[in-house]
Structures are given as C-alpha cells and as structure tokens.
C-alpha cells in the first residue's frame, strides 16, 4: 500500500470565463520527487495555489497525511507542513538575508530579539546548504540568482513534509543548479516529498521519480518518469505533434536597419554588439537575468546606457527617451503587458491609439470617430476577439491582450519591433496566432528582435540567435546551428 503524503481528489476550479482545473486528481508519495509539467496556463500554478491556500477549489478535496483538510491561507499551509518556493520573489529587499529567513519568527532571548544568535544560526544554515552569501548581506545587494537561493533557503529552514518548487532554477547558473539538485536529493533521503515544476525536461528526467502532465486544466498522464520519453512528454504537454509548432516564414532578409555597438550599462550589461536586418527575426536567448531585457530597455530609451553607439539605417543616434526611440521607429512590447504594456483600466481604443495620436486627428484635434474606426480596422486585422472595442483591457484574455499590445505598436508604424517574452502566459492557440503575426510582420519588411526564455520558441522562430549570459554576449548562432544544446551551453557559460 503506497504511503501518500498528499492526495488531491477531483479538484475543479473555475474563474470568470474559463475552467482552470477540471476534475484533477493528483497524488504524491512520501519521500518522492514528483515532477509537474505543462505549458504556461495549463493549470499547474493554479493547482499549487490551491494547495497553498491562495485559492479555494470549487469542487474536490485535499487529503494530507491521510486526513482531509481545508487550507485557507499560506500560514495554514505552512503550519500543516507544506512549503512553497515561489517564482516571484517575496523578499524584503531592504532587510538582511538572515532577517528574511527568520521573518515573523525572530528568535528571542530574555525577551528581546537575539541578533547575534540569529546571524550565527543563519550563517551556519547557509553554509550547510553550500550557498555563497552572508547572513548579513542585504537582499538588495544580491544578484537574482542569489535571491532565488534565499527563497529556497526560506522554505528549507522550516521542517516541512512537502515542498513545492516552481521553476526554481530559472535564475540559477550551473553551479548553483547542481547545489540545488544535491539539496533536493538530500530532502528525499530525509523523507520529504518534493513537487518539482519545471519547463526544463532535462531536470525532470534527472531528478524526478514520477511525472504528471497537465494540459488545459486536466491531467493528461501520470506515471514513473522512467516510462516516458522526452518527445512523449512534449507531445502530451502540447497536445499535437511538435513538428507544426512553429510556422515557416518566407521572406528575404534585407539590409541592416539597426546596428548596436558595444552597448554597456554599468553592472547590468557589457559590450553588447549585434546587427538587425530588415525582414529578420533575431532571437535573444539566455537565462532569466542574463541581461536581455536590459539591452531592449537601452535601445528603446527606457533606461540610459553608459557606453556604446546605436545606428539606425546607418545613421548614428543617441537615444535618450522612449519618445525618441519611437520617433526612430523602434517599438518595445514589454515583458509585463499587464503592468507596462497596457493600461488595464482603459478601453481598447485608447490603448491602441496612444502611440500615434497624430493619426487620429482631424486637423489639429482628436476625432473620436476616426479613432474608433482606425482602431477597429487594426483590431480586425489582428483578429482580436472582443465583443466591443469599448471593452476594458482588463477583461480580455492574455492572448487577446497581447494582440492589443501588438496593435498599439502597429498603429505607430514602427519598423523595428522588440518583443520581450511575447507569448508569456498565453494559451497554445493564441501563441500560434502570435507566431503567424510575427512572420507576417517580418514579411512586410519589419525587423524583429524576439526575447524569449522558452527555448523551443526562440529557436524555432528566429532566423538568427544571439545568446546572452551574465550581461555579456556569448555568441551568435544561425538557425541551422541553433540546437537546444548549443544554445544552452552558451547560455549557462560564464
């Protein structure tokens, strides 16, 4: 009889307009490493948030250690022995590592906080894990990778029965990843179960005992990891053959429209140089924190750069503001469309026309009629699914929201488009539409830089690939030479 530490039975969770989880059943044995794989939006995060008390399931039950329980919030989850390592950092940057580890449970001696003891214990703990920072360091002084390690340490510091790790290696370098693997294997020996969520299938095969695949809110398959092949897992994740995953682009690659020479932003990126051609999709690959967004920000004028030269159509320009970048025909679709790509409180028309209000003027003043008409044309062209353009941006699905952001930049007729994680948080069908759109734009003569952390995507869609690591350009690969191994080895090199 298997000893299950966790059983989730027939979990269903609905959100307005979508069923996030449909009759999902999921079991984890004591002391096993259980991988949970699936695409963005498949439901893995939702399932884990239910486990952690952030959401409540509409139907179904949770059984922990043989007892049925209800988990109402994160604290209850912790109290029952469930720990979750988030993808986003939940650290207080102004405080020290030790204080973050001991947050809300600072040890006291004689009634007062025992700082000496806390720092000592914390340092011992950090050293025992093999991490390379001090308990006294302030979080704001640490790199993204180190911060991720602190998050992991937070969860390990308390005795848990089950730990969930959501993309824990997304910010880590190879050395740190190896340390993490050791830690996880240690946990298994101690009888602690680990749910491991990751896109990196190599990790799944390396670490896990069991794998569960989720797609579109349902469990597609579940079983010992050894019984799956890589292709099988990918096919089950995606639901169709992977060959048709990326549409083929047909167009000529023209002359150089953008030339970047030795761009440096102190402490962030160093000596980045590359060229971008008309009709080309240039991929930017690399781990999170490798500096790709920083390069985009520099070119788009969102952040200043310390050294380097930017040439547009052969003309040297010094870009000091986003407005100027727009004038130079550069547009940036930001990583976080909800925060910086759209104004969620406004309707679609406003969101689309904001980049080129001159176009909606009748004479010297804005014509709302003209505005609506032009926005509608663009919306139809991009196939944005919405009952009305007066709909607020917040009400659209992720895929449609991203289309609106595209529409926004197409409205200003920019020639150079920088896309930062354009398909993040979008379902499979919409992703494909975005790929088609990218190809169409390239075929129309635009030049595209595509920043993406999804290897298959960035390899499949680009004509050429630039790989960054630690703020430096590690290499450039042509489409033929860009294999996942080649890209990865450049991306993790130091």
């Amino acid at each position: 009889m298997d000893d299950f530490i966790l059983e989730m039975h027939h979990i269903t969770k609905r959100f307005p307009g979508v069923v996030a989880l449909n009759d999902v059943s999921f079991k984890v044995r004591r002391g096993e490493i259980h991988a949970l794989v699936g695409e963005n939006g498949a439901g893995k995060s939702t399932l884990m948030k239910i486990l952690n008390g952030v959401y409540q399931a509409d139907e179904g039950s949770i059984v922990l250690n043989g007892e049925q329980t209800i988990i109402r919030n994160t604290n209850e989850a912790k109290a029952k022995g469930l720990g979750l390592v988030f993808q986003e950092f939940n650290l207080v940057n102004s405080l020290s590592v030790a204080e973050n580890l001991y947050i809300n449970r600072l040890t006291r001696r004689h009634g007062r906080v025992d700082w000496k003891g806390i720092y000592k214990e914390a340092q011992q703990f950090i050293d025992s894990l093999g991490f390379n920072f001090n308990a006294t360091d302030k979080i704001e002084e640490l790199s993204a990778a180190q911060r991720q390690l602190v998050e992991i340490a937070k969860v390990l510091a308390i005795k848990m029965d089950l730990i969930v790790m959501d993309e824990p290696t997304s910010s880590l370098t190879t050395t740190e990843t190896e340390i993490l693997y050791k830690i996880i294997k240690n946990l298994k020996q101690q009888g602690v179960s680990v749910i491991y969520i990751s896109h990196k299938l190599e990790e799944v095969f390396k670490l896990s005992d069991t794998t569960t695949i989720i797609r579109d809110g349902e469990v597609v398959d579940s079983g010992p990891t050894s019984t799956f092949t890589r292709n099988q897992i990918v096919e089950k994740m995606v639901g169709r053959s992977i060959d048709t995953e990326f549409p083929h682009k047909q167009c000529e690659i023209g002359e150089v429209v953008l030339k970047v020479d030795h761009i440096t932003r102190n402490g962030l990126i160093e000596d980045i140089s590359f060229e971008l051609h008309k009709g080309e999709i240039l991929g930017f690959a690399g781990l999170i924190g490798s500096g790709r967004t920083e390069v985009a920000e520099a070119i788009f004028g969102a952040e200043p750069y310390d050294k380097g030269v930017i040439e547009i159509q052969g003309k040297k320009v010094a870009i000091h503001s986003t407005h100027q970048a727009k004038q130079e025909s550069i547009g940036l679709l930001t990583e976080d469309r909800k925060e910086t790509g759209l104004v969620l409180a406004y309707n679609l028309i406003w969101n689309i026309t904001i980049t080129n209000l001159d176009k909606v003027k009748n004479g010297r003043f804005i014509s709302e009629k003209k505005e609506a008409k032009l926005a509608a044309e663009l919306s139809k062209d991009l196939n944005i699914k919405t009952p009305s353009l007066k709909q607020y941006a917040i009400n659209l699905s992720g895929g449609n929201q991203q289309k609106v952001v595209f529409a926004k930049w197409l409205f200003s007729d920019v020639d150079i488009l920088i896309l930062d994680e354009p398909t993040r948080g979008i379902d499979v069908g919409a992703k494909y539409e975005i790929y088609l759109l990218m190809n169409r734009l390239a075929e129309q003569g635009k030049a595209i830089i595509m920043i993406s952390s999804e290897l298959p995507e960035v390899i499949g869609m680009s004509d050429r690939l630039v790989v960054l690591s630690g703020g430096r350009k590690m290499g450039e690969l042509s489409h033929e030479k860009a294999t996942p191994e080649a890209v990865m080895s450049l991306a993790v090199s130091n």
Partner: protein
Amino acid sequence: MRRQLPKRSCRLQFQIERGGRYMESNVIVSRRKKLIGVLREWGLVFSIIIITVIATIIRPAFLSGQNMLNILRAYSTIGIASFGMAYAVIGGGMDLSIGSTISLTAVITMLIVNSSTVATVAPASAALLVLLVGILIGATIGAINGAIMAAVNGKLAESFIITYAMQIVVGAIAQAIVRGNFQAAQYRSGLFKEFGIGITPVLFMLAVALIMQFLLVKTKFGRSLYFLGSNMSAAKMAGLKVRKVRFLAHTICGMCAGLAGVIVVARVGSASVLQGQNYELDALVCVAIGGTSLDGGTGSIMRTLLGVMVVGFMMTALNILGVQSNAQLIVRGAIIVSAVALDVLNKNLKLREVAQ
C-alpha cells in the same frame, strides 16, 4: 448544472481585492447594487437638486435667479482653481500650493492696480496687464512645481510634500512683499473692476472650463495626461513624453491659480496674504466630489464644474443654516474622506460584465 438566477438580479462577476490579493468570485447581485454605479454617474445632479430643494424650503429666496448668480460668482474663483487642481489630479499628482499662489497673485495685482504709474495708463490696458501678470506668476510657480516633479519622476506622494513646501515658500514671499499689511482697494472704476462684477467672473469660469475640457479630450496632451495619471510606467513605455506632460500639467494648474487670484481681487476689492487660504482644500473638495478619482487617470473638467456647483450650493445652504465657518472646515474634511473612501470602495469592486 447552472443555478437558476433569482428574480430581479443579474449575474456580475467580481474581482475582489481582499487584503491586497485578488480573489475571483462569482457573485449574484441584486439590481440595487448595480445602481451604485449609476448613482456615481448621476449622483452629482441628484445632489444639486436635493440641496436646492432643502435650502429653498428653509429660505425660499434661495431659488431666485439673483441668488444662483451670487453663488456662482462667489465660487467662480474656486471653480477656476479647481480646474487647475483637476489637471494635477488627473495626472496622478496634486497641487497644494494653489492657496499661496492665489495670495501672491492677489497681492501683486493690488500693487499694480494701485500704483500711480499704472493709473495713468488707459484702464483697459491696465486690466489686461494685470491679467497677464497674474497668469504669468501662476505659471512660474506651477512651472517650478512641474520642473521638480518632472526631475524626480514623482507621483502622488512627492507632489504632496513638494507642493506643500512650495505653499510655505510662496506664502512667505507674499508676506514679505506686503510686510504684513492689509491693502484695501483703491482702484478707479474701469475694466478691471468689471472683472469682478455681475456675470463676468462666471463667464471667466465657464470659458476656462470649456478650454480646459477641450484640451483634455481633444489634444495629445490631454490624452497623455490621462495615461500619465493612470499608469506612469505604461505611459513611458508607450513612448509618451512623461516629464513634459507632467511639467505642463502643473504649469497650467499654476496659471489657473494665478487667474483666480486676479479675479478674486476684482471681486472682493481687497487683497491680503490670507486671500488664498484654504483654496487648495476647496479645490480638492470640488474635484473629489466631481467624481474624479484622486488616484488619477480618470475624471473631467465638466464633472469638476458640477462639483463646484454642488459645493457652492451646499456651503451656501450651510451658511443659511447658520453653520460657522470653522465648522464648515469640518464639513470639507469630512467630504474629502467620504468621497475618497467611496471611490476606493468602488474601485475594489471591479465590475466585469460577462456576456450572458
């Protein structure tokens, strides 16, 4: 199995913020709750009507045309200041220096009007000169506010403190000029005096309102101002000239205050350093009652105008009821709290109407 909807209700889906986190929940709401949204839209008009009715019952003369005109004229300067404040608020900030700007402008206006050299020039030119100077002074102060705000990329918090500090500095400058004296009006009759008589102040207010509303809705600047107030990062990432827009918004706000200062002198006939006291407060109240969210990104001048009318009628009604000016201060504060609290409550229930 879909549950049957009870009668007289509609299915609204909410995204409710609870303790800082968003939780989705499906709620069946009675149609009455949906009325809250409607109330916010037409509540202003309702309020004006209700207040008018009550006041007329107490004192029938309230409803006379003369009285209405008096109220509008008395509140015309507050109105103009409110429009300027509205620009600042829509842009996501605030301007607490309006009061001192009005004082300073009033004081300087009085000096110009009373000076012997100016008296010899044709009265019409003197009047225009004074208007221009007033607007210019206001523009300068607003520009300084705007420049600092643009340099520090400030939002609500920064605008509070910085404009408050400006209020102190400008107030002191006004005092220094006047050396604490109370100046009485001595101007000859002429165009300047006309500014403050009859329907002229109201015309000024309406003209300013129309111009500013037009700018908001029909120009790139206005649209950019909305975006700036709603989400500064998104505005920047859309290629908007965020700093320039913020600078202009504060400058225009200052200009409004300057204009109000000139008209106040014309209307009241004297100027003291206390002239502008509490103006920023009143302006804020009018803006808040007008339904403009103090978070920025929404609102309009027309609504602020309605807000001015509500406040004007309400304060006058309170006067009739014999409420002291000190107690009226309490009322103003209470209005701000309630208006903002309602606004926040409204925001937290982000209505998402799903096509049924």
